[in-house]
């Protein structure tokens, strides 16, 4: 499929009409099963007890915080290279979702830190770099909406998104580079996950569910964004027509 054909809003709407129910339904199913397995059926941790269940929300949220940013950076590159209007709409649609996942990650991490580390917050490398990621999302959204001309906002914030992308590897490797309180990766390791299947299954289900949820929300927000653009264009031509009419 020639993906540039998607620039046509009508074609994008038809494709998203077909995809949206699958994304939304898949997200609901994965999240329901994942939450049941995670919160009810999986065993408590031998050290952490039941509070380990925060992991099933915290870890996928953290993955999503970075995954959404990676998508944002790709959309930003597409917006700058191909001047693709759909990429502008996509960036604007995805940023608040990514910020929400990042906030969810920070909030659940804080709730988990209190019983485990005895504190709501520590200035450890990974926490700090995720917090910076959250700030970059905020800056992106502020810059995106700071211009009267939407395209200017989209292009400016796209450059910021690409500059801010250097934060992603820093987050990923922060726990390896700096020896800190936050534990290192235990799922994506070269020697296989160091986590038992009864916990890994709900974790991965939640991750898939969050990913599908992100796609569903992004599609809905992109469609709303396209409608907004259309509305703005319509009201612009209408007021222009009205201006011409009154002139006559």
């Amino acid at each position, binding site marked *: 499929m020639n993906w540039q054909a998607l620039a046509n809003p009508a074609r994008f709407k038809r494709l998203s009409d077909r995809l949206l129910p699958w994304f939304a339904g898949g997200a609901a199913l994965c999240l329901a099963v994942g939450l049941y397995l995670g919160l009810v059926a999986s065993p408590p941790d031998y050290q952490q007890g039941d509070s380990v269940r925060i992991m099933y929300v915290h870890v996928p949220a953290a993955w999503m915080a970075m995954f959404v940013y990676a998508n944002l950076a790709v959309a930003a590159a597409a917006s700058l290279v191909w001047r693709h209007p759909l990429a502008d709409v996509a960036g604007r649609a995805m940023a608040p979702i990514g910020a929400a996942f990042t906030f969810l990650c920070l909030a659940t991490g804080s709730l988990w830190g209190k019983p485990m580390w005895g504190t709501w917050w520590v200035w450890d490398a990974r926490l700090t770099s995720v917090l910076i990621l959250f700030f970059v999302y905020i*800056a992106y959204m*502020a*810059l995106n909406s700071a211009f009267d001309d939407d395209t200017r906002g989209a292009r400016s914030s796209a*450059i910021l998104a690409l500059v801010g992308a250097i934060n992603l590897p820093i987050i990923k490797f922060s726990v390896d580079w700096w020896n800190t309180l936050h534990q290192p990766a235990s799922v994506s390791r070269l020697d296989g996950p160091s986590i038992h299947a009864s916990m890994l299954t709900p974790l991965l289900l939640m991750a898939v569910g969050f990913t599908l949820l992100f796609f569903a929300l992004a599609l809905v927000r992109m469609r709303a964004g396209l409608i907004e653009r259309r509305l703005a264009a319509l009201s612009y031509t209408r007021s222009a027509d009205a201006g011409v009419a009154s002139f006559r």
Partner: protein
Amino acid sequence: MSATLALLRRDLSLALRNVGETLTVLAFFVIAATLFPFGIGPEPQILARVATGIVWVVALLASLLPLERLFQSEADEGGLDQLLLAPAPLEALVLAKCAALWIGSALPLIAVSPIVATMLQLPTEAYGTLLASLLLGTPSLALLGGIGAALAVGARKGSALLALIVLPLAIPVLIFAVAAVEAQIGGLSVRPHLFLLAGFAVFWLTVAPFAMAAALRQAAS
């Protein structure tokens, strides 16, 4: 090359003729740092412990002040179109503007910083490292600030937006600059931290011209 040097010379002579702006930045730097002894108490041990952080954080905030005018004044007065038409790559021209910004506002700030550090009871042995960290760290701040200023040209909420863009990206510089001085006070090697600061400067020197030029091109279109 000559156009780049001409721009550098013009910006520097502008900075010399508007000494008031530089003095305002310096005054902000000193006054904001003075607030801390009032805020956290005048005990010398406490102040000595936090002096580096205060000097660096206030320097970071002070370096935001001249940013709003950096490219916005060019855009308002039509200079931006001249930059785009000039017989030199825009990437080189924006570097010249950042260099002028650094010489015009960061260097005076570094010159004043020992006085502020004295008021905050910084241990004597740490002055050299503080100056080295400022000399190696502020170029990154000027380049980052240039990116923010170029992105925010024509934006509605100028100064707050600039802080939002620049401050998160400046955090790594702050971390390693303060770590260098802490290492000096703690009797550890300062070299890894200073090398990292130099590395940041080289990184932003590589990335920032392209980001600034891209931002200005689309601001002018």
